[in-house]
């Protein structure tokens, strides 16, 4: 007999708020990440990210070893993009020490970074669609392409993901002609995958329904919140360090910087597709123009490497956003201070603002659209 509640029902159902802890062992949190969520029915009323489960004090480790010795540790930050992590660290050290990098090495770095971007964005949108409920298919299509790029990394550096490839003033191994041919083949075949992927996903009704007008990040908040990378550009912030800083030889290539009109989950999906197309343009030009010459500056010592006392900050446009290293040298063989500016960590600053008022299922895809890696968030 439940007469009383029904009789009292005048159109409005009272709900109670519920505190839910999503994660750290949850398949959609992309690692050991926890969100403490306050729900009103299905609606998110508050959300606090809880991190640190993978914290290993990377920075302190690096301060206890020589400058070069932390290069392989940078691979473990964002383990999808060890090449760009290496580059960010090498760039910061080169900036402090005033090392000039040979031209061929700069081109090789660009090739490696853009291939990293391709495989990162492909898997990022694969994971995002998996979070939307497209179980398996898009992610495995993306991983199939990623596999070819990882094979190339393995051929060049000896490792698929933990490449440890860059050195101060150059790269560890020069690319020979068969390796370049392998890279050219990857670049030639990649557009076919993109076209097929887009045909399946970009105008897919379910993707549109789930992603459009969800988790909007306004442009002003993106700038004030130090958001960088594809997440910021999806919100209309035209800021790409490859254009702004023109580090390496990026000033020589013709490519566009796509920006999103709305800043919702769909824009963050589509901006990555467009960035892959731009990365392919850069790769074609770099593979065409790569000059002959040394791939490592000979004057840079591997042993007993020291930097004059002082500090400096170097940053690159990683696939997830601005990856920077702030280094302080006291003139000794080890860094006095070694700080990583991880894009994933700072991009979740505004996660709560994006999720408020949306359903809990949307919070999952909003997190997926930021594309975080916990190795980098927790360090």
């Amino acid at each position, binding site marked *: 007999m439940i007469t009383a509640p029904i009789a009292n029902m005048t159109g409005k159902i009272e709900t109670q708020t519920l505190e839910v802890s999503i994660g750290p062992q949850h398949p959609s949190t992309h690692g050991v990440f926890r969100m403490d969520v306050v729900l009103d029915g299905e609606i998110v009323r508050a959300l606090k990210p809880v991190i640190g489960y993978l914290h290993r004090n990377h920075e302190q480790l690096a301060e206890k070893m020589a400058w070069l010795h932390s290069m392989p540790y940078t691979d473990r930050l964002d383990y999808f993009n060890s090449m760009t992590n290496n580059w960010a660290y090498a760039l910061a050290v080169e900036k402090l020490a005033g090392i000039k990098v040979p031209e061929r090495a700069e081109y090789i770095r660009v090739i490696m970074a853009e291939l990293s971007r391709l495989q990162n964005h492909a898997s990022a949108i694969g994971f995002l669609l998996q979070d939307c409920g497209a179980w398996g298919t898009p992610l495995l299509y993306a991983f199939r392409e990623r596999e070819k790029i990882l094979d190339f990394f393995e051929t060049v550096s000896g490792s698929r993901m933990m490449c440890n490839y860059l050195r101060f003033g150059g790269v560890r191994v020069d690319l020979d002609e068969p390796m370049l041919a392998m890279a050219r083949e990857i670049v030639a075949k990649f557009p076919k995958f993109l076209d097929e992927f887009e045909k399946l996903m970009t105008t897919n009704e379910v993707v549109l329904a789930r992603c459009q007008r969800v988790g909007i990040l306004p442009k002003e908040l993106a700038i*004030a919140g*130090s958001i960088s990378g594809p997440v910021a550009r999806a919100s209309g912030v035209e800021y790409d360090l490859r254009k702004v800083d023109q580090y390496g030889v990026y000033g020589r290539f013709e490519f566009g910087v796509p920006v999103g009109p709305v800043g919702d989950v769909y824009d963050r999906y589509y901006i990555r597709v467009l960035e892959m197309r731009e990365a392919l343009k850069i790769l074609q030009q770099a593979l065409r123009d790569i000059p002959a010459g040394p791939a490592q500056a000979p004057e840079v010592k591997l042993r007993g490497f020291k930097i*004059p006392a002082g500090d*400096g900050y170097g940053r690159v446009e990683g696939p997830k956003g601005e990856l920077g290293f702030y280094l302080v040298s006291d003139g000794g063989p080890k860094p*006095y201070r070694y700080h990583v500016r991880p894009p994933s960590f700072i991009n*979740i600053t505004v996660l709560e603002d994006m999720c408020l008022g949306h359903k809990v299922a949307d919070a999952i895809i909003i997190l997926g659209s930021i594309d975080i890696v916990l190795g980098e968030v927790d360090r």
Partner: protein
Amino acid sequence: MIPAIEQLCEAVRAAVPDAVLEIIPSTPAAAQPALLVDGAHVVAVAKYLRDDPSCRLDFCSCVTGVDYLAKGSIEVVYHLYSVALKHGPVVLKVRAPRDLDQCRVPSLTPVWRGCEFQEREAFDLYGVKFDGHPDLRRILMWDGFQDFPMRKDYVPPADYEWEPTPHDEVLKRAKAGGGIMPPSAAVEVKK
């Protein structure tokens, strides 16, 4: 283009007359000299740098602490860029004494929202208290942790499993030069 650091220093001095400013050089190659501001005026200086039409440093890229043990101070470093005018960096530094009670600086989170998690991290690892921060809690270390592990004089506990924080015995052992590991860490269960 961003004005040279000397001109910027003069402009800041004109806008915030009471601020105590100093220019700190970086390595010659990096050429990123920093502006050291006293804690009492850093918020006003930060607001000026953000709002002034020739600076418009709207993007606070990187916030971190540095422990200068020999100088007895902890430095908080802000790297500022401008998305609107596409220039930077301007490096802003604030110093606080290492002493835990006095180690406080004003928070810049009200000026740049992006400082929120990064200042929490500096608090967590260095023990810098940011006055005016909306939510100053530990972020990377766990809540029960007591010390600040990135400080240069930090002594790690013998075994995190049994001694979650470095208590007196560990510190005593370390001071006596007996190493940080006890003879049998596994059996030394705290009651």
